[in-house]
């Protein structure tokens, strides 16, 4: 389900298409199906997890993650490599998400900006960690559906020290 702003109407087929993309985006990560996950993104996509609360600049300020498609591919290649020693004990993640809300449809690009709260539990070897925050998506129209042009992840403790962060939120 995607909550719509007041006075905004969109065809139900478009809503269902967006819901499906958002569902798959989380579920592919939950299942570790990274190639299919990456295929949901556009060629000019960005995966961004800011380092500071309300950070609006990823160029002159460091980020927890700031990756274009090529760097996302490189991360996938690394975490699926047999010599990724840190993952020898296995890794698994489970995301629980709140209702998605359409914030805006941009006039020019027709991109949808959609946000939802999330919690993620990660198990890596014997260690279990919790993450929580906000997913913000920029969905760009493509064919009958959407592709993800940007996924932004604002952790509630983005500016705190973390142990290594290896997989996507």
């Amino acid at each position, binding site marked *: 389900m995607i909550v719509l702003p007041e006075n905004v109407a969109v065809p139900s087929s478009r809503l269902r298409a967006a819901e499906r993309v958002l569902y798959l985006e989380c579920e592919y990560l939950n299942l570790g199906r990274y190639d299919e996950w990456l295929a949901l993104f556009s060629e000019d996509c960005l995966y961004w997890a800011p*380092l500071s609360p309300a950070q609006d600049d990823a*160029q002159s300020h460091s980020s927890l993650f700031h990756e274009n498609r090529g*760097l996302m591919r*490189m991360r996938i290649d*690394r975490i699926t490599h047999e*010599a990724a020693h840190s993952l020898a004990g296995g890794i698994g993640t489970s995301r629980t998400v709140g209702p998605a809300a359409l914030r805006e449809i941009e006039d020019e690009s027709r991109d949808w900006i959609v946000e939802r709260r999330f919690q993620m539990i990660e198990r890596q070897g014997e260690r279990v960690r919790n993450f929580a925050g906000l997913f913000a998506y920029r969905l760009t129209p493509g064919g009958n559906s959407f592709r993800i042009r940007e996924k932004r992840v604002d952790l509630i403790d983005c500016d705190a*020290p973390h*142990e290594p962060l290896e997989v996507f939120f």
Partner: protein
Amino acid sequence: MFGEMVRVGAVDGRVYTSREVFAAEIERVFARCWNYVGHLSEIPQPGDYRRVTLAGRPLILIRHEDGTPRVLLNRCAHRGAAVVGRDCGRARRLRCPYHGWTYATDGALKQLPLPGGYKGDDAPRCGDPAWSLESYPAETYRDFAFVRLEEPEKAPPLAEFLGPAGEALDLMADRSPTGRLVVAGGRLAIVLRCNWKVYLENLHDGLHPPHVHESSISAARAAASAEDPPEEVRWVAANGQPLSTFGELEVRCHPHGHSDMSGFRKEPDGMDAGYRAALEEAWGAGRAERALTRNLHNACFYPGASAHPQYMQMRRLTPLAPDRTLVESWTLKADGAPESHFLRNIRYANTIHSPSSLVKPDDAEAYRRVQQGLEGRPGRVSQHRRDEKPGPGPDTALSEEYVRAQYRAWRALMED
């Protein structure tokens, strides 16, 4: 007693696992060395402060109203409550939130409620050092502020303590024609599940990259085959150079456990002519050339700080427990340098020093496994004997001489 746990090139594993050793290290190694407390650009105006924990002590780095940096214990003289609660801010006075004891920016007690309630000669009095926030001597080197927490009378001056290792800080400051650096772009912070020394002992280790970083090297090589790969790919792939390359990197060991290593990542030539001219005017041709071309990968300021001058990074390690270490890093922006340099250095920080770095997790895993192994059988010695030699001289990134140099400093401090 602690000295016996360390022999030349062979260290008792309990040095990494024992709570007793850890507590002694905090008091004897960290509290008796100059510790990096922050950069003056982080407290530009009088009253600007930052909270810092060093050697287990909750501290405030603050700029006093006379413009000098001060380091105060964040502990009210009344009941001991932390006076400052925010990580950073600006204050004309520091007021304890518990009973309102109020201090000046040099720690002097300025106000306390109902002073008539105290009797006797030793009663709390405004301005009395005994009733002020404890203050520690701070010194700066090119605006990098360091503090000495115990036995300040025994401390060599900061410049003497840093010795030749200070070159790394000079190289960064000399990248600005005004000598002015500004901490910019936030703080990256990573927690490692290892003893602090395990982390330090990897700083110039040229033997580990092909093994530890195999997964990220492989991923970067695949990415490098694409057309015009970004520099992030190049930085990660640099770990995949042959061991002979690391064998050519110069490692210098300095007094007090410090050391530095030449760089194995190369940036393409191409320098802004106006920028070069400005540096030459400020520092002279030779010094400007050195600032622009001396490729120093990192420098260790034993025990708790390191710098990556080529990419303008300052790092501080904080021992949290025998098996936990915090590493923070900051990017320094050089006043008057091209913006593109700063933006590149931010990308470098994201790629190499962020908790999400593709390089870092396998380093962290190697450290964790060392820690686990030593905890599993703590009496067993760990070896740092590679390329032993009779006296001082040039070393390479394939030698473990810098680890032995760290232990020489450790022994001197722990036995003192």
